[in-house]
């Protein structure tokens, strides 16, 4: 049904989305009633809820249980949660050489079993991370952890972390903490009881996990705020069929959905408009962006430019020749946003508008660069035809739709695009397995990326020291993009801790990137949440969505 939406329907839905966004915070605040159960329809069951060991679903739901020193709001700005304040050089939390950071805990915080949370738990968490027998692999374990040299307790509420070099990711550290008193030693693998159902300081505790059926979260009796959480229980009920889960929400069998995908949003918005008792809130900031990765080198040889895409004129023509608005309107029913920026999300976001659709200009750029149209309408220069492979993960029908739109767009300006989609492991496979990206054996590839709080890793993917070679197979720069100025800006921004200074450097780097076009942002997926009117107090201003703020939920009627 998504595809049958007309442009007018799309506009109506867009309007409904805006309306939903503006009406949600306008709810009056009745005194929340205590008690009751909220049910989350969980479409995919995680293996663990411990952020130290798991990613995605488990890590996000685990946020109701285990809190970080800091959390990020919807825009990617950090605020202290278990920490008393954000350490800066001004408040003495960061040493003059930027190498030592002192973290201070809020006083009086307890684990849900009543034990006090102390700096010893943080020392232990680092020991567990550093132990070769452990297997930390969670969302919380970002590359910033690699910069830690040592963690020392100063007193029960203060600990200092010595870094190997200035660590701009110091607010990402200790997004998870392990209760020292629950472990015999620092070896933490996924077979420990804590790994699946972690102890935390958050508003809820994992009370029971019936695999395949439901995960029961109960009120934490030792939560620091005695008035909250309002609910007695939050139950994540596993409903693997998305359609059944959606209907369950509309019928009030469940209160919310973990989580609606882009394709569900038009259905949900329509259902809300038709008077079903649900709220739909669209995320206002941009989420995942679909990227077109250009191969800037010739078949994995960084020294030779790609015969077609190596010409900046071709990359510019592609940028101007794609009608991005059409993708959003025709494929996504008008939901989604456009951006032209490498850094479109997080606290360092740089606002660069998407390149406007201008096929005439695109043709003109190609003409000026010497790409002449042949008899079949495809341009060529010095015997090289402007013909490119276009690849993404096979089997994704939605993507195939806009691949065809792009194919037609580019044909109009004289560039031939051949769609040759492949399984994910062929495209993203390791160097030794002959992965197309790693080997530079592609022309244009497409995948989602870039939804980050801090740009250090993301922007670092495009520096020339990340270019993949036989000697450096773990490199991430599969575009084979190399620019000295970009390297310098990103390198510098990644080696200092002052946010204002970093923001300036990243802004320049993003401008450089947009001018060079080693990759193109296509569109940013619409993202949103839906919950039943039965539930009150739902807030969307956390980076990970409505779940980490479940302490504020209450039964409204």
């Amino acid at each position, binding site marked *: 049904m998504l595809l049958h939406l007309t442009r007018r329907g799309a506009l109506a839905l867009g309007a409904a989305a805006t309306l939903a966004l503006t009406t949600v915070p306008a709810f009056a605040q009745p005194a929340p009633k205590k008690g*009751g*159960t909220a*049910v989350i*329809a969980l479409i995919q*069951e995680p*293996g*663990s809820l411990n952020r130290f060991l798991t990613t995605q679903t488990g890590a996000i739901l685990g946020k109701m249980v285990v809190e970080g020193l800091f959390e990020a709001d919807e825009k990617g700005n950090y605020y202290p949660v278990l920490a008393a304040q954000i350490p800066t050089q001004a408040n003495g939390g960061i040493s003059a050489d930027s190498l030592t950071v002192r973290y201070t805990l809020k006083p009086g915080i307890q684990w849900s079993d009543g034990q006090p949370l102390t700096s010893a738990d943080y020392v232990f968490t680092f020991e567990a991370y550093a132990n*070769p027998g*452990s*297997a*930390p*692999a969670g969302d919380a*374990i*970002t*590359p910033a*952890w*690699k910069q830690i040299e040592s963690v020392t307790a100063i007193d029960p509420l203060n600990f200092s972390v010595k870094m190997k070099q200035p660590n701009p990711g110091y607010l990402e550290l200790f997004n998870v903490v392990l209760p020292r008193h629950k472990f015999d030693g620092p070896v933490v*693998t*996924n*077979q*420990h009881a804590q*790994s*699946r159902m972690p102890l935390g300081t958050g508003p809820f505790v994992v009370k029971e996990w*019936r*695999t*395949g*059926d*439901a995960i029961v979260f109960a009120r934490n009796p030792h939560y620091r705020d005695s008035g909250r959480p309002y609910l007695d229980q939050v*139950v994540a*009920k*596993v*409903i*693997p*069929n998305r*359609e*059944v*889960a959606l*209907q*369950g929400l509309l*019928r009030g*069998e469940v209160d919310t959905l973990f989580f609606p995908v882009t394709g569900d949003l038009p259905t949900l918005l329509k259902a809300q408009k038709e008077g079903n008792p649900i709220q739909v809130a669209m995320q206002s900031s941009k989420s995942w962006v679909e990227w077109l990765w250009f191969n800037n080198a010739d078949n994995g040889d960084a020294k030779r430019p790609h015969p077609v895409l190596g010409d900046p004129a071709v990359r510019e023509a592609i940028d101007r020749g794609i009608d991005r608005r059409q993708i959003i309107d025709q494929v996504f029913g008008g939901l989604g946003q456009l951006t032209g920026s490498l850094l479109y999300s997080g606290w360092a976001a740089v606002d660069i508008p998407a390149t406007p659709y201008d096929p005439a200009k695109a043709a003109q750029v190609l003409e000026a660069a010497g790409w002449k149209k042949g008899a079949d309408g495809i341009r060529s220069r010095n015997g090289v035809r402007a013909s490119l492979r276009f690849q993404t*993960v096979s089997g994704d029908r939605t993507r195939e739709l806009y691949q065809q739109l792009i194919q037609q767009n580019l044909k109009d300006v004289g560039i031939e695009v051949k769609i040759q989609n492949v*399984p*994910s*492991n*062929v495209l*993203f496979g390791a160097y030794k397995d002959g992965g197309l990206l790693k080997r530079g054996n592609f022309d244009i590839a497409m*995948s*989602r*990326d870039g939804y980050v709080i801090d740009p250090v*890793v993301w922007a*670092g993917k495009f520096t020339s020291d990340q270019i993949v070679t036989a000697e450096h197979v*773990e490199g*991430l720069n599969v575009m084979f993009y190399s620019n000295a100025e970009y390297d310098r800006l990103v390198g510098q921004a990644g080696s200092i801790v002052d946010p204002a200074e970093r923001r300036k450097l990243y802004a320049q780097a993003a401008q450089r990137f947009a001018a060079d076009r080693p990759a193109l942002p296509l569109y940013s997926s619409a993202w949103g949440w839906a919950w039943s009117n039965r539930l009150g107090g739902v807030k969307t201003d956390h980076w990970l969505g409505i779940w980490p703020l479940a302490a504020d939920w209450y039964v409204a009627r």
Partner: protein
Amino acid sequence: MLRYSLRRVFGSVPLLLLICAFVFALLQAAPGGPLSSSEGGGGAAEEAMSRMRQQWGLDQPAYLQFLHWLSQLLHGEWGTSFNSGQPVLQLILERLPATLQLASASLLLSILIVIPLGTAAALRKRSWIDYAITGVSISGISMPIFWLALMLLYLFSFRLGWLPSAGLGDIRASAEGWDAVAERARYLLLPVACFTLVTVASLVRFMRGSMLDTLDQDYIRTARSKGLPRRAVVGKHALRNALIPVVTMFALELPRLFLGSVVIETIFALPGVGRLFIDSVQVRDYPVLMGILVIASALVVLSNLVADLLYGWLDPRIALGKV
């Protein structure tokens, strides 16, 4: 009879191993592994992944992994899940009740429906009853089970609101005692109906055919010509013999009920073994997959044995080795 059965059971062990080895090889050959992520992948993950690979023994050659798994299995060690870190056997046992409830209820209902319905169709060959039963049966076979499940859900749950759509009970309020049983029955009604309908559709024609064949036999004619009442001819002489092939079919349904309920379990959100299997396939959780496959293969062997034993009871000639 006993020697025959024992020989069959022991003869199945190498077969079981062969199946396991084959399945293991297939899993290994499938693209991706437990540590492959679909898209992206940061720089830090690589290091963690190599650590995990080591921990799980994935850096070893496939045949060593298989032999290791086999020796562990013989020591009663089923291993732990890659995905959740839980013991495999415990995971499977946790999922068993839902599957068994669904399977046994459906199987029982199917038997109760298939035998009289198939017999009735055979006795009134070419009557409107026969045509009606055959028609329903053929449309039942032709209907994809997921479609049937969604239609039942749509009608009884979403449209009429008579029955709940997902799970095994009300999450918000827990029932006690007989209320709990009644509630469970309400939640299982649609999935059981769905499963039963499909099983009945495929077996009722079999029952009809078998009964027709039997009714043509000489001994039935003899019984009739002796002047036995129709009830005795059909109920005592024909039914027992007509059941022999049908019993095989029912016995072979057992393993299908164990794993074949994937679609039903997924649509109705039942925490059964079939879904554990599919979830494990999706994350390439080898230890869990192998555990389930061993049980499933054992079940095939076992149900064949059950069929044999039932044969012996229904037709003593088979047990005595005279056929």
